[in-house]
């Protein structure tokens, strides 16, 4: 569904950025980074609104010929950016919103992980990806592993069978 998902810290460094296909990773990194300009603009324009009336969804940030970049900002100023293929006409505003909501929930789950330090890069390759799947994905048990001795824990959901995500 989405071709790239990024979670960006308050200070604008990427906490998590995954894209597919992976060979174009760099392009998406640039795209997401550039879209932060618009996110910043929208946030500062939104700053005047009352907190409880604030809409987290920022809408379309950055249309390009091939992709549409959507933005979402949490109350703690963590930004979610999602890149969607322009040719994917099935994705309307509502779908994007619901994807962001799922992403937000997944992010909240990550934050709840006691082994995760807020502000660290989110190590898990798959932690936030299920949100981008169109249908509920069956996930296997979550296991916490340390990538290196003394390194941070990362929680990995293993898929029971087959690829986890259908794009």
């Amino acid at each position, binding site marked *: 569904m989405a071709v790239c998902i990024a979670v960006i*810290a*308050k*200070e*604008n*460094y*990427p906490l998590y950025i995954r894209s597919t296909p992976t060979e174009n*990773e*760099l392009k998406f*990194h*640039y795209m997401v*980074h*550039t879209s*932060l*300009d*618009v996110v*910043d*603009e929208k946030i500062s324009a939104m700053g005047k609104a009352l907190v409880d009336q604030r809409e987290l969804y920022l809408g379309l940030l950055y*249309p*390009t*010929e*091939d992709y549409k970049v959507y933005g979402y900002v949490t109350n703690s100023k963590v930004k979610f950016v999602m890149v969607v293929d*322009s*040719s994917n*006409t099935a994705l309307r505003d509502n779908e994007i919103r619901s994807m962001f909501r799922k992403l937000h929930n997944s992010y909240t789950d990550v934050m709840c992980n006691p082994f995760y330090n807020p*502000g660290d*890069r989110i190590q898990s390759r798959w932690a936030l990806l299920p949100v981008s799947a169109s249908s509920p994905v069956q996930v296997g048990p979550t296991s916490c592993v340390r990538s290196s001795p003394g390194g941070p824990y990362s929680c990995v959901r293993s898929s029971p069978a087959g690829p986890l995500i259908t794009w």
Partner: protein
Amino acid sequence: MDASEEPLPPVIYTMENKPIVTCAGDQNLFTSVYPTLSQQLPREPMEWRRSYGRAPKMIHLESNFVQFKEELLPKEGNKALLTFPFLHIYWTECCDTEVYKATVKDDLTKWQNVLKAHSSVDWLIVIVENDAKKKNKTNILPRTSIVDKIRNDFCNKQSDRCVVLSDPLKDSSRTQESWNAFLTKLRTLLLMSFTKNLGKFEDDMRTLREKRTEPGWSFCEYFMVQEELAFVFEMLQQFEDALVQYDELDALFSQYVVNFGAGDGANWLTFFCQPVKSWNGLILRKPIDMEKRESIQRREATLLDLRSYLFSRQCTLLLFLQRPWEVAQRALELLHNCVQELKLLEVSVPPGALDCWVFLSCLEVLQRIEGCCDRAQIDSNIAHTVGLWSYATEKLKSLGYLCGLVSEKGPNSEDLNRTVDLLAGLGAERPETANTAQSPYKKLKEALSSVEAFEKHYLDLSHATIEMYTSIGRIRSAKFVGKDLAEFYMRKKAPQKAEIYLQGALKNYLAEGWALPITHTRKQLAECQKHLGQIENYLQTSSLLASDHHLTEEERKHFCQEILDFASQPSDNPGHKIVLPMQSFAQLRDLHFDPSNAVVHVGGVLCIEITMYSQMPVPVHVEQIVVNVHFSIEKNNYRKTAEWLTKHKTSNGIINFPPETAPFPVSQNSLPALELYEMFERSPSDNSLNTTGIICRNVHMLLRRQESSSSLEMPSGVALEEGAHVLRCSHVTLEPGANQITFRTQAKEPGTYTLRQLCASVGSVWFVLPHIYPIVQYDVYSQEPQLHVEPLADSLLAGIPQKVKFTVTTGHYTIKNGDSLQLSNAEAMLILCQAESRAMVYSNTREQSSDAALRIQSSDKVTSISLPVAPAYHVIEFELEVLSLPSAPALGGESDMLGMAEPHRKHKDKQKTGHCMVTTDHKVSIDCPWSIYSTVIALTFSVPFRTTHALLSSGTRKYVQVCVQNLSELDFQLSDSYLVDTSDSTDLQLVPLNTQSQQPIYSKQSVFFVWELKWTEEPPPSLHCRFSVGFSPASEEQLSISLKPYTYEFKVENFFTLYNVKAEIFPPSGMEYCRTGSLCSLEVLITRLSDLLEVDKDEALTESDEHFSTKLMYEVVDNSSNWAVCGKSCGVISMPVAARATHRVHMEVMPLFAGYLPLPDVRLFKYLPHHSAHSSQLDADSWIENDSLSVDKHGDDQPDSSSLKSRGSVHSACSSEHKGLPMPRLQALPAGQVFNSSSGTQVLVIPSQDDHVLEVSVT
């Protein structure tokens, strides 16, 4: 369409279109009314209620009044709305029935019939009344009749279809009213007609739309129908509604394309899938692009044509609506969308054609917007337009690349062919822009014409875009465009221009920690730097890239090889070094000291093992790794002494370095956490706490300037420090990952060595870690040989064997065989030699190295202790037992309570214990082998006991009491107590009243011994006694040596009782008891007990007639304020010196309290006549002191200060006389000479009866 069949008046699609209203009947009449009508009609708005729940609108109506013709009426099926007559008006001013019947009625009927034939129901008959006409024709019927007639004839149930307009050309209120009514009617009818006809039209249109799934349905046809509606709305100035029509068409078309993409193809859509042959961009300068419209009408339009036309209409309407920024936004969407749609529909597009189309369109939109906004508006809305600028730049860039305009050599023939094809697709320039110099068409043509022109246009656009992005704060976007520009410059072989853009972008990515863009940009920068020949920068970038895990192994190896290749090049300038920061090459992980406390003595060997984590993908041979060490001598700093260092500086010797966070330098805001540590500084002498506090170890991280942290990439002057002190390790191969490197150094000069820089040299390339943090130091010390002698216990006790610890710190001296300590013996201190004493040898770090037997040889004067062999910087420890002999006790006077010869109280002891021990210092001089000077050591021994004595009397019988108080913490066993008279007078006997010969004395407890004095003859005036008692520690087993007994010498003087004082209180006569407040009599009886004795011979003795008498002063004092002495409380009496001489004194005293009261004290003093020799010695104060002492000795309760004061005041009255005149003096009688036989007796005092006040004082 029926255009060809009937010659219709050409519809001019301009803003001038107005709804058509036909006029029939009297044309002249209408012509006369027309100016007013056309002026008045739009003046007032009218509410237009809409069908389908659309919001009502206020609308200003205008009309195009045309003469009625039958041809104007639309035929069935005609969908043209613009030419549709919405209302038909018949004008007449007929007021004559005859005329009406003759002509007007027929004419009206004909008109009506025509209308009916076309089923048009929107009509109105206007009857204009003219007063002037009426007057002229008197025979006319009343006007109502004509109106009635017409209504009757034509307005069947629709009487409102006939209105009267009175005197339209006059200026009267009636005229005005009439006009208003007419205009209202006209507007109402017009709106009714709109509602009805547009509603019908819309219904038809919807019906047509519902048929869209049927085969043969044509989008173009439908397009024309709905556009007709849009035109009408536009005509009615309802631009919003008009825009809605186009937006609906847009959405419908988009949906078809999407469905087509999903496989649900509509036949008609294939028309739009024709290969793109023309890409001349949007045309927005005309309200309606008839050319495109006709092509749609003819169903010949391509997708781009349709989109272009649709957008041009939307643009026109949006500009009418004053929404130019929406145009920009929609334009961008449209352009993106078109590109997508062409892709989706698989329309074949020549390469570059779309780029041309997009480029032209972007510029067209921008120019169109610029054309209708002023500069300020444009400047404040850059955010809306910058996207188009950026898109145009992008497209021009890709065109440039496509047409070979970016390459160094210029376009080849293939490129030129392509360019020609592209230009052909542009067609000829449109006439409306032909005269514009900067038209998009001309720009594109020029840009594609030559390399130079392209460069100019591309740079213009890029710079404009960057500037715009920057001005609205979209720095990231600006940097991104800048990177494209850098790429362009690199292609053009102008790396010097590219560098600044790459650096700018890189800085931005670094600041925000975007790893992949950093890597990518660095790679570009590396290439750029290589071309520029910036060797140092290139190598630095290479080292960063070689350690970058986002690159492939091959790429990393390549960059690593670049560094190694350069390093291995024979340099023309051999001393030249390329200094690069270390962190990308390798990271310092940890450091390990051996010895672990990082303290080493001069000449000692120190090992420093560091772990370096090589970031390079391949093993790198490093010629040398050097640590620059800063050396500092901190003299007079206790912390740097050998004692402190060896004792206190204990750590595990491992220092961990925080991992470099270089690749993800999080934000400037997230500072590192405070590293706080407690700090205690203890006094060197007694280890007491001097200062304490909290130290923040990473202050330099927290307080550094924020700006500096952003310049992460810059080497920022990595300066090589040239120090005299270096640690070096040569020829090391650093494998990828962790490497252990060991530095070994022999300590030379004492001081503190701080590790400053770490350098690794690979050929002429030096990787430098400019600062090692946290601070790593090691200390080198030198130490003088020293001897310490200290008691093992808190304090040494005299009289019993005590252990003393000897510590020899060898320092730089090596103890050789035969070296010995020579102790000069002190007289009163023995060194007890024990056969099995052993010495321990430790290294300075307290590791035991050996132990050896100690040989001690004693001679008369000297004790020699031969030391075991020990190397330098070691410690020898052994213990010796010493015994302090009690020093020869000197005579203790009676006033001297303490029986030692050299009594001195140590201040410190006083604080520890209430009673302080008497101490003796023994000085021992020790000759050490390393010094020609003797070391003098003072050992202080404390006497564990304090002894006091007291003389006790019972009438004339005398007792000596000795109190031994144990002040030490030890328990002792006392044995064999003796009291001997040293003067050896034969007639004096000391009879011990002590029963036990062995007696324990516990810590802090006292033991009393009592002897009775017995004599046969006249006793001597003074008695010299020596008390001795054997003692040994109670707990210890049998001691090897016999201990000397403890002795105490004292003198007792004037112990013989001379006077007996007896006091008695009698109640007032007639009373049984004393009562408070009533005077009682006090009788004092002073009795001399002996005849003249030797002791009486003093100044007070007077002789007359063989009778001796002495002067005594008595004084009655009540210390406890129980009694009030009434009258004289003191007096001088002359006492005959003879046995049984008695003096009786009467006094009045008054009890102040009830109860058993002790008697007031009666004191006796010798009353001495004045003697010049004594008066200077004894002043009043000293006399009082003596007095108080004498009172103490009676064993009475200690006088409190208040009573002392009161007594003082009593005497001060007397003593004041002493000062001026030679006055007699008072001398206290020694305690032994007076016996107070009534001391301790009490008198019962009962309260007086009228005393109701009971005073209770609680203290």
